[in-house]
């Protein structure tokens, strides 16, 4: 048995022994997800137990170094861990923006103190993060952001910034413990005048307001900062070079979102719907064309991940994947609505579980906006991959 095979056997046995039965059922909805954090209410004891037993082994962040709360797995081992979770039908023990987004950025840009302090809290599910990037005036054009941190020296509170401004699209801002936030710290330099700050959402002067979407209520908030005091130690990376951190992190976000159109073999929808409206030959033709694109994109997703693993992927390729994946997912839901017919139009009926088809369909429309619009993705591909002039 190779080392990896032995590792797989070990992991499999560990999951079998430690994953509670309730955690092996498919995630049904938002409240089955374990987000962790100070204010999180576990749905049941099993959810808490599963998170804690994993955290103790570093499995909540399997590929992070052991020193920072991870299990120190190699990419190949981490892949086995994910595969074995999937095989067992086990839910992720912990989901969080800390794991997906802030963590990788801290690993790359954080000080040793920051890594030990924040990464450990993230790994143990003790802290829940939200992301403060977009502002009403700066959507695609992030560097135009206006939220301003004024530098203040204070004998009592030490050196700090006083932050004023407004963020938008802050997911779960009303539930998060801390925020990682882009703040302008130099008004004279557009690109190199932004810093990447971390602060507690309980700091006086922070308020949030949920945003209602066309699909209904949402995790998004508007977040307001009114003279919020942020100590100097809570900066990640260099002063005024927060854009470097943000870009790195956005890359991760795009990779994540680009997966939205993918679902492996299940990405084809024609066969799922066969008992439905396929007496309509025109819809059948549209579904076949879609399935071709979906199955092809899922091969692309596989190839992309394989290449990422060995460093063969073009660094700007996630932009292409994000573009293609989100456009595909929008198309998928347009077709699901067509196939569902008038039933899929119902907005709050029991039969549709409160209008799930329509709300999902509307929600997908944001896929090609959030995390970088399709237009921005195409700009990036034109510039960085095709190297077209002036792009």
């Amino acid at each position: 048995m190779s080392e990896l095979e032995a590792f797989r056997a070990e992991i499999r046995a560990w999951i079998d022994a430690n994953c509670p039965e309730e955690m092996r059922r498919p995630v049904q909805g938002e409240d089955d997800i374990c987000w962790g954090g100070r204010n999180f209410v576990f749905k049941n004891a099993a959810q808490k137990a599963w998170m804690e037993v994993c955290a103790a082994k570093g499995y909540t962040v399997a590929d992070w170094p052991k020193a920072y709360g991870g299990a120190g797995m190699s990419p190949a081992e981490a892949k086995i861990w994910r595969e074995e979770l999937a095989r067992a039908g086990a839910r992720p023990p912990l989901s969080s923006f800390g794991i997906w987004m802030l963590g990788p950025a801290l690993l790359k840009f954080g000080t040793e103190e920051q890594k030990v302090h924040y990464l450990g809290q993230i790994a143990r599910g003790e802290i829940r993060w939200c992301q403060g990037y977009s502002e009403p005036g700066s959507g695609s054009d992030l560097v135009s952001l206006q939220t301003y941190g004024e530098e203040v020296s204070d004998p009592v509170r030490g050196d700090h910034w006083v932050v004023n401004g407004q963020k938008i699209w802050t997911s779960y801002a009303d539930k998060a413990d801390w925020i990682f936030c882009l703040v302008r710290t130099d008004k004279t330099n557009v690109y190199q005048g932004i810093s990447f700050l971390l602060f507690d959402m309980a700091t006086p002067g922070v308020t949030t307001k949920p945003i209602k979407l066309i699909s209904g209520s949402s995790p998004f908030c508007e977040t307001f900062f009114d003279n919020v005091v942020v100590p100097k130690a809570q900066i990640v990376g260099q002063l005024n070079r927060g854009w470097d951190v943000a870009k790195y992190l956005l890359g991760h976000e795009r990779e994540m979102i680009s997966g939205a159109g993918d679902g492996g073999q299940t990405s084809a929808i024609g066969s799922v719907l066969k008992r439905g409206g396929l007496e309509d030959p025109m819809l059948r033709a549209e579904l076949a064309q879609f399935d071709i694109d979906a199955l092809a994109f899922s091969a692309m997703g596989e190839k992309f991940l394989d290449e990422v693993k060995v460093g063969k992927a073009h660094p700007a390729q996630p932009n292409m994947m994000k573009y293609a994946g989100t456009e595909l997912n929008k198309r998928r839901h347009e077709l699901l609505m067509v196939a569902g017919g008038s039933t899929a139009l119902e907005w709050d009926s029991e039969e549709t579980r409160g209008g799930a088809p329509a709300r999902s369909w509307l929600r997908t429309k944001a896929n090609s906006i959030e995390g970088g619009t399709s237009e921005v993705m195409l700009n990036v591909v034109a510039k960085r991959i095709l190297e077209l002039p002036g792009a």
Partner: protein
Amino acid sequence: MPLYYTEDQAMLAESVTGFMADEGGIKKQLRHWRDTNCKDGFGHGLWKQFAEMGLTGMLAAEADGGLAMGHVEAGIVLAEIGRNLTPSPFLTTSVMGVTALSEASDELRGRWLPGVIAGETVLAVAIDEGAKHRPEKIAARAERAGNGFRLTGAKDFVIHGASADAIIVAARTSGSDSDADGVTLFAVPKDAAGIGHNAVRLVDSSMASHVRFDGVELDGSTVIGEVDGGRAVLNKVLAAGRIGAAAEQTGVGGGAFAMTTTYLKTRKQFGKLIGEFQAMQHRAAHLYSELEIAEAVVIKAQQLLDGGSERAELMVSVAKAKAARACNLAVREGVQMHGGVGMTDEYDIGLYMKRERALTEFMGDANYHAERVAQLSGY
């Protein structure tokens, strides 16, 4: 006939445009009734104003107190309804309902049309049985019973069904489900015993009803046209509903497009108005082209229908399909070009997207009509 408005039609368009923008606007009507969770999904006050404007009876014969206008004129009203997302029973009542009743006895017309024309009566039309528009199949049965009929079956997604004073029901009086013959239309009053409603709110905040008819007793006077010969009337009602929905859809698409081009001219990103970006310009210009073409074929089909042309049936399906595709593109581009704010309930562009979807399903989606185009063309 030239494919632009006559002077009379242009005058009508002008007054309807002003009326609908003033009285039928999104905030005053759609958002108001939606946010107050109105069980009808529209306002009876506005419906009364439709009557005062002379719109409710525009398709009715002069002898019945109507204006004897055609589908071009009805389309003018519907396009403005679409542009303002105005919730109203105009399409089901004054277009489809009146088209059906035009084929009915003096007694039936006398019973329902005055109320329609006065803006006091609402009509609904019950055809489909299931989630997709498949009027070729009518399974609800009306069996002869005494001097009349006993109606049993279910109809789905009857728009305004639970609010309507009468529902025009296509039922089978003989033959099997998919037969062309053997269909009869009835004007079923709301208070007939044995009617059950399960009213659902749709994505566009309109109300549709799953209606059950549980042995509803109907006397012979409720029959519209000939017993077993209702398919011809039904086809007229379908054509009226389809071209009406297509007209409304051009308004929805045009409204979304207008809102979007305005946004392109005001929103800045990267130091430029987003409408300065050539990629946006080309997509907007392409969309303009699609919307213009959709509008043209809708008018063409209206004229053919009004003129009783043999090609009307084909061109109505072409128009419904084309309007659906163009309007769908308009709302998709609209939301995408608005970016994040386009996803918020606060902005109106998402309401256009919702209405587009519901209108597309109504009376057959683009695929249904593409199939019809293929079949009517003989392939």
